């Protein structure tokens, strides 16, 4: 047996804990998505994608600017830390209807580990016209997403 030193165990969070996804309905045509990112972890801005069904989004969501990180091969990439909040306007008002918000995200830990892309979804009930905003709802258990 080789006299190998014991490997330092990386104390890593499950991806759905490292990147907690939640959302709420603001009004009958606007959703708000939220990622609470644990300390020592970050998400890639350009890997963050949202879609809604059956009512579509009103175009591409405007993602807040991230922090610039220089990547040796990809050049400048933007990353998020802390909390990211994204407003998601829908193409049409749909008072009282249920919609499903899908999010895809991909992030890493500062210790030098990256998680595969995660797909998550949250079902939200849109409020009635001029009704109060919905409550913040956390994502259902994660299912691994693969792009190939």
């Amino acid at each position, binding site marked *: *047996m*080789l006299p*190998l030193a*014991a*490997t*330092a*165990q*990386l104390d*890593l969070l*499950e*991806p759905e804990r490292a990147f907690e996804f939640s959302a709420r309905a603001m009004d009958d045509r606007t959703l708000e998505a939220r990622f609470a990112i644990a300390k020592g972890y970050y998400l*890639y801005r350009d*890997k963050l994608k949202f879609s809604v069904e059956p009512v579509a989004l009103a175009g591409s969501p405007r993602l807040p600017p991230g922090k610039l990180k220089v*990547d*040796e*091969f990809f050049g400048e990439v933007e990353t998020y830390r802390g909390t990211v909040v994204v407003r998601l306007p829908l193409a049409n008002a749909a008072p009282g209807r249920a919609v499903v918000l899908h999010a895809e995200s*991909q992030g*890493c*830990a500062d*210790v*030098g*580990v*990256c*998680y*595969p*892309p995660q797909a998550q979804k949250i079902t939200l009930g849109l409020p009635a016209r001029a009704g109060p905003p919905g409550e913040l709802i956390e994502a259902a258990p994660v299912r*691994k997403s*693969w*792009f*190939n």
Partner: protein
Amino acid sequence: MPVPMSRRFPPWIIIAVAAVTAAAFGVYVGQRDPGTQDGADGSALLAVSLPDASGKQQSLGQWKGKVLVVNFWATWCGPCREEMPEFVRAQTEFGGRGLQFVGIAVDQQDKVLQFVEEIGLNYPALIGGYGAMELSRTFGNKLMALPFTVIVDRSGRVVHTQLGPLRAEKLRSIVTQLL
């Protein structure tokens, strides 16, 4: 509705994962943490066959008898890309003495090909998908995160597994003892 496994994964990966899982359970019962698998049987890893970046099928068994460093990586994984130039240097330095790196990319072929050319990768970059992640899990990668590296000695025994970057000094200290 659940999707049948055969529709989600190509048959080769199902067979490979089943073989590796069976072999892994023959040695260990339950999950092991990375870095604690010294002595595990790596023969199931050597039985894996995957297409390389040019589409040609490659069996890991062709490198049996060499010191094999199998690195699970992806182009979307920054820490993976950062450690690979060191692997290229080590392959150049120790390749003649029987060291063989093999990358298994959890990624798309076109992206892998582009990156391979960009850094002048001098060892095979095989293409895996979800099945490759499952394969890494049988060697202790519980979170299925990247990079993850498995070092197999000449007799096919797993001597080291590593989640996260494998530092140059550590890599060299392990492989020089095995060569």
